[in-house]
């Protein structure tokens, strides 16, 4: 256990960074939300006025949007969790040398442009598409799936599933393999073993995944705009419309604040539910079983019966969803047509690769993005790893509240962070450009790394540390030879994810780029606002190749598995 004094010291770097780089835009958003006048140049009032909140509360449409957004977030989170388990388990069973490839497969959706991904969803769901064909072949009437909640949900599951898989991967990888063997030796079938051993032991990872996916899916808006066909309205779309189309910052800020509060509440509820589900972690006695023994037996028997069908089906669905964009992107990157979102093949060309490789500006922007992402990950790791120890091993009362506060940047829609930064632009531009964007990127990335590392730290085998200390090891030796090797896969996963988030960030960065500093995603976004050319697919393909190369390299230095356990 960490004493309070130490806890404060370990949490301080993370807290300090958030105070400097996040509290300011958050403060700006909160202050804007209590302004009365919607005029962009109205003088700032320090007397709070609640008119914007009253407007939201009194508007049935906005209320419905908020409820729908939360429900969508919950649905996407649940679906991601169900699809992620088979994939994460598969990944832990993959031979070590194939693991970088397995990771690359999972990360495909994060490496492809959102417009191209949504084209994939449209192709899947269109009346003449794959899903519709299957449904009709089974004898059902032609479904109307495109442009609605289902399409948006599917698009969000596709892009957030990787987060869930990675969150589960580390805790599943760390699990004692002999436990499942013991369960099976005692007569439990695979489904029972999963439900009674693997699942409960993976709950810290599941908690990380649930929190991250919920926060991401309840603040996302691009997919909803692209595949929702305006049948779907989510809160961040309202923030965008009011803040950027209508320049009504106060209403946009109030909407973002309402979302922030709701997201924090849901995060706390998820934490509470997981804690209740694992009483052993808090030294409490087991609860009485939820079901009578006979009912439970029937349930487990039913689970065993459906498992042979259900498990491969879920695995197949999940991997197909993850891999489908890869097919689209690779084919489109050599497609001889000017627009990126073309379903038909018009001929083979290397032209799009040529356009990128001949153009020093793409490479220059890519170089900036790379430097920024590496710096972000390093800074993020340095502040979030100690903070993760505090959140797991601290003994102070406000631990849960601190954990929720540390995740605030995830709960505020990116577009609102951007609006907040706009208000501070004069101060921001006084900071050196790279440092300024780095500060903001760390705010966006560190909470993710914290959530993931927290799960990894929670999974540490404390008996190993005690044994080492008993044998006379110093604190430093314990850290270097016992703790860090156990954490290596978790750290690697957190770094991969942090790198990709920073490397692909556009929502907030688009407000902050200057003539001196432009990232690759902002360039792509700027081009897409004119017309999305196929260069975007060539860039995605190159990024996927780069990611595979980085993963292979990473695997040489930081093992993605725990080889000593076999």
């Amino acid at each position, binding site marked *: 256990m960490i004493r309070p004094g130490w806890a404060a010291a370990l949490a301080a770097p993370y807290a300090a960074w958030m105070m400097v780089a996040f509290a300011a835009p958050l403060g700006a958003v909160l202050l804007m939300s209590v302004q009365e006048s*919607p005029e*962009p*140049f109205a*003088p*700032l009032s320090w007397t709070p006025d609640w008119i914007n909140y009253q407007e939201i509360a009194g508007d049935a*449409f906005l209320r419905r949007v908020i409820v729908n957004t939360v429900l969508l977030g919950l649905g996407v989170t649940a679906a991601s969790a169900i699809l992620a388990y088979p994939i994460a388990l598969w990944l832990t069973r993959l031979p070590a040398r194939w693991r970088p490839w397995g990771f690359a497969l999972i990360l495909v959706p994060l490496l492809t442009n959102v*417009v191209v991904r949504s*084209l994939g969803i*449209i*192709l899947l769901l*269109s*009346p*003449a*598409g794959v899903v519709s064909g299957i449904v009709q072949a089974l004898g059902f009437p032609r479904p109307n799936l*495109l*442009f609605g909640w289902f399409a948006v949900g599917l698009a969000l599951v596709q892009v957030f599933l990787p987060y869930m898989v990675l969150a589960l991967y580390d805790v599943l990888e760390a699990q004692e393999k002999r436990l499942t063997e013991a369960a099976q030796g005692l007569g439990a079938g695979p489904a029972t073993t999963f439900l009674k051993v693997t699942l409960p032991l993976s709950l810290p990872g599941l908690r990380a995944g649930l929190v991250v996916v919920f926060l991401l899916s309840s603040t996302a808006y691009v997919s909803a*705009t*692209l595949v929702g*066909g*305006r*049948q779907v*309205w989510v809160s961040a779309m309202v923030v965008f*419309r*009011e803040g*950027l*189309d*209508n*320049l*009504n910052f106060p209403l946009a800020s109030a909407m973002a604040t309402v979302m922030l509060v709701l997201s924090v509440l849901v995060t706390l509820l998820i934490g509470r539910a997981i804690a209740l589900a694992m009483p052993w972690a808090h030294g409490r006695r087991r609860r009485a079983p939820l079901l009578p023994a006979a009912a439970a037996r029937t349930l487990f028997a039913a689970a065993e019966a459906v498992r042979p069908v259900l498990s491969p089906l879920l695995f197949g669905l999940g991997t197909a969803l993850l891999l489908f964009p890869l097919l689209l992107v690779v084919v489109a990157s050599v497609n001889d*047509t*000017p*627009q990126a*979102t*073309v379903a*038909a093949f*018009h001929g083979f060309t290397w032209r799009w690769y040529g356009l990128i490789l001949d153009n020093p500006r793409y490479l220059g922007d890519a170089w900036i993005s790379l430097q920024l992402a590496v710096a972000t990950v390093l800074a993020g790791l340095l502040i979030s790893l100690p903070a993760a120890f505090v959140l797991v091993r601290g003994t102070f009362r406000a631990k849960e509240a601190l954990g929720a506060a540390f995740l605030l940047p995830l709960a505020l829609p990116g577009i609102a962070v*951007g609006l907040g930064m*706009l*208000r*501070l*632009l*004069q101060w921001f*531009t006084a900071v050196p450009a790279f440092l300024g964007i780095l500060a903001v990127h760390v705010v966006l990335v560190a909470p993710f790394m914290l959530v993931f590392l927290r799960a990894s730290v929670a999974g540490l085998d404390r008996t190993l540390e005690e044994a080492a200390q008993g044998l006379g090891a110093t604190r430093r030796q314990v850290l270097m030879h016992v703790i860090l090797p156990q954490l290596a896969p978790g750290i690697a996963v957190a770094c991969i994810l942090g790198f990709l988030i920073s490397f692909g960030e556009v929502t907030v960065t*688009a*407000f902050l*780029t*200057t*003539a*001196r500093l*432009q990232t690759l995603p*902002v*360039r792509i*976004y*700027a*081009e*897409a*606002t*004119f*017309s*999305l050319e196929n260069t975007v697919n060539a860039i995605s393909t190159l990024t996927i190749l780069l990611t595979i190369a980085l993963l292979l390299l990473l695997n040489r230095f930081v093992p993605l598995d725990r080889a000593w356990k076999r």
Partner: protein
Amino acid sequence: MSTPTFTRRALVGAALATPAIWGTNAVAQIRRGDELTVGVWGGAQERILREFVSGPMESQYGVRINYVLGGTVERRARAYAERGRPSFDVIYLNIFESRQAVRDGVTQPPTPEVPNFANLYPSARIGGYGVAYNPITVVYDRRKVAAPMTSWRDFWREDLRGKVIWPSYPGAQGTAALLMSAKVWGGDENNIDPAFANIARLRPFAGIQSSQDQLFTMFDQEIGAASVEFGSFTRMYAESRNPNIEIANPVEGQAIALNVACITVGTTKQALAQEWVNRHLSPECQRAYAERIYYSPTIRNLELPPELAAKLIIGEQAVASLVDFDWDVVIRNQPRWASRFTREIAG
């Protein structure tokens, strides 16, 4: 948090006074080593500007042009946040945003000190310097309609029932569609109810589109028959991948849309910014726009081959036939109409 200490009127006054400080010969004020920061869209537009505007300027004057690429909404939000102390010298906006920005003291009204200003059509002289007409019109898949579409009213034809892909509002296409609907159903920007009532009659829509890429995907997938879109991009799409798509020239006219170069209030590079705009309005640059992306010229002194001209809006009469609106009214009502659109049309 900064509170503007200037009043709006003082700022506009400063903007109007600025050229006087610089004297009549703006070009004389350009110094070697000066830097100009331009906020503009990426892709083909950036390539054309580098070739015809910044490249020649950099080699002629020894200056440096910095591009900040992005979408209109981010650029506009930033320019508003930096009013009076801009990090941009020139920004590109759409027609109604540019006029509002001048009124809000964010960007300067145009001045005849830019030599090519004299060649601009009247509608390209408001809110800055119009650099390209990019009108919005009716586009449709000829296989899916009983007869060619020749009027904005044709969306309400029986053979199009359930096949219309409506553009979302706000947005250039959605604004044009809303205002043209008002016009053909006896309303206008001051009487928008006929538009909402009649658009609602079109439901259910085959889809709602919020970008050209999305519309073209829908056309590819044969999800709908007709929509409202920029003629220029749709022509490129039709010629490169879907020959069934027609770009109509409705009897009521095409709706005006304009890309506008705006010099910011408070720029310290007035002469260089004016030189930039002047070159953007040069016949060479305007010709490249027309040839490569079917943008119609905003200047009178450009001759184009007849087969190209037939695809564009060329000449006094054609430009005058573009339907223009009272953008003050439009922009003032946008929040209200946007929320009506979500509730009554697509929400």
